[in-house]
């Protein structure tokens, strides 16, 4: 068991190296660099620009730059952001909390709504409940996240019930103290982005839950359980549901990765200062150290999420547990 865990963790290292290499390569293929926009600035001399580029290793080929980056990264130093002039790690930690709160709220909403609805739809197959859920799923899957976000923004603006941007009201800027009113204010800001983010994953989880449960409800061991006179709740809960849960654990693992890598579209629409927005900004301004750090982190989280999903599977399914 422990050797298996250790092996899985070891396997992550070459993938992380590959992803960071690829990021450096792709960044070098884009025209210009972070300092290109300063070239037309009359106040900055050619010599100064050369100096700045040399300092950021932008005068060297990408693989040499990668070498420099790797040398620092191995010591735990991800370097300075060219744009923000503060350490990349500090920047990420600052944004991490916002991203985490948004993603966790969306995750909770999506799963707590989708699972019961999916179960309900499967148990009452072909009833109006099932049809209603199918309609919701159809809408949820076909409306793009970006359109839903814009519609929510329009709704917030037209009704005035919800703030349109940020994590909290402007009056809290620079304020250190926390009180109940501030928490409420944050929750108020959180509502719409979390709902929109949840809506996009809700439909998929719900349909997956429904179809898996339908499969197991048709299985002979479920019929056998009914034949032995077990109550319907017991039959569904203990026999059908437990066997329907496997694919959902995998999906759950993937969504864990999303918790900390940020939601690009929603964070941008709602001006949510999270990691997704940071990554996008870093890409457009070609702040390469920040880009590599966020991409590598997202990759790492995805792998850890998968890993957790596998552990959950092994924990829940004796057939998988015994094979390993």
């Amino acid at each position: 068991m422990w050797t298996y865990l250790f092996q899985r963790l070891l396997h992550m290292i070459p993938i992380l190296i590959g992803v960071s290499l690829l990021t450096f390569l792709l960044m070098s293929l884009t025209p210009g660099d972070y300092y290109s926009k300063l070239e037309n600035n009359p106040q900055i001399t050619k010599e100064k620009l050369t100096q700045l580029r040399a300092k950021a290793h932008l005068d060297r080929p990408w693989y040499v730059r990668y070498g420099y980056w790797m040398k620092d990264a191995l010591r735990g130093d991800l370097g300075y952001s060219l744009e923000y002039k503060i350490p990349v790690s500090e920047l990420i930690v600052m944004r991490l909390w916002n991203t985490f709160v948004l993603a966790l709220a969306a995750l909770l909403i999506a799963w707590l709504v989708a699972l019961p609805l999916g179960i309900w739809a499967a148990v009452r197959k072909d009833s109006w409940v099932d049809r209603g859920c199918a309609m919701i799923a159809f809408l949820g899957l076909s409306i793009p996240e970006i359109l839903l976000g814009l519609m929510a923004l329009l709704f917030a603006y037209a009704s005035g019930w919800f703030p349109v941007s940020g994590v909290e009201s402007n009056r809290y800027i620079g304020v250190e103290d926390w009180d109940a009113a501030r928490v409420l204010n944050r929750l108020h800001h959180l509502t719409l982005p979390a709902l929109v983010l949840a809506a996009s994953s809700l439909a998929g989880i719900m349909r997956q839950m429904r179809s898996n449960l339908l499969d197991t409800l048709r299985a002979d061991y479920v019929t056998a359980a009914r034949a032995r006179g077990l109550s319907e709740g017991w039959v569904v809960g203990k026999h059908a549901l437990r066997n329907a849960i496997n694919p959902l654990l995998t999906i759950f693992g993937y969504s864990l990765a999303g918790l900390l890598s940020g939601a690009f579209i929603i964070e941008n629409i709602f001006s949510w200062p999270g990691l997704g927005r940071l990554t996008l900004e870093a890409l457009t301004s070609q702040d390469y150290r920040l880009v590599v750090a966020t991409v590598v982190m997202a990759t790492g989280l995805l792998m850890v999420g998968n890993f957790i999903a596998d552990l959950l599977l092994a924990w829940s399914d004796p057939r998988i547990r015994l094979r390993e």
Partner: protein
Amino acid sequence: MSLLEVKDLKVHFPVRQGLFSRVKGYVRAVDGVSFSIEPGETLGLVGESGCGKTTLGRAVIRLIEPTAGSVVLEGADLRKLRGEALRQKRRTFQMIFQDPVSSLNPRMTVGQIVGEALEIHNLAPDAAARRERVGELLKSVGLDPLHAQRYPHEFSGGQRQRIGIARALAVRPKLIVCDEPISALDVSVQAQIINLLGDLQQQEGVAYLFIAHDLAVVEHISRRVMVMYLGKVVEMGESRSLCRDPKHPYTKALISAVPVVDPKSKRQRMLLPGDVPSPINPPSGCPFHPRCPVAEARCKTEVPELREVTPGRWAACHLAQ
């Protein structure tokens, strides 16, 4: 008194179509079947795929809701039972499934699978007594009591079928519906399971409704045999005489399809033309007439009743005698 008395049982499934799921017709899976089973008896049920054998078996023990008719077990009409009363009654009738892989919950140990019903129906006072009873049951089907700790996927097909049998026996039922319990097994294992079922019948006095599509097996295990075609019983009688001297042309065709071990045997194979007609729009008159080699004009219009052709032998054919 008979253990089980089934009268005019019908199971019709609605066929829905279109936007508003209007009912366009019915699949007459089981269409007016009557029979009885004595305590400790085995009644064989044969017919080709899709003739309604499984539906009949499941409707008898209310795993499928019958559309009409009555099922009386030990004097109690099962169709009138609801909810908790029905769940309590389920102790008296059990089922063994065809597929030994999908009929055992992969997440439960063998002990849990066999012991669950004991717990639900309070058949064992405590966990220790339950463990002991599970061990007893496993031993009675030829497994090691230590196997209770293992999971179903650690067993072979024949062993799994034994677990399924132990599970059905746990509640000491009076009737077990065996839904093709051996068709998914190797021939060598088939014989073992059939012998096991026979031995258990002697020990426990349980009655079987034994569903199969293999007449040779059914003849071996059952005292009486019932032949189904398109949701209806076409012939019923004592198994040996039915196999020697079938009265209904469909039964004749079925028997001629059973392979004979003697390679020199030059018997007449009777091949039926065409396929089984759709049970949504069954043929008029005798449902078998489009494929029957001896059909007459009246077979197309008059529905033959199941009548006693010779003492103890019933057939639904105008021409049988």
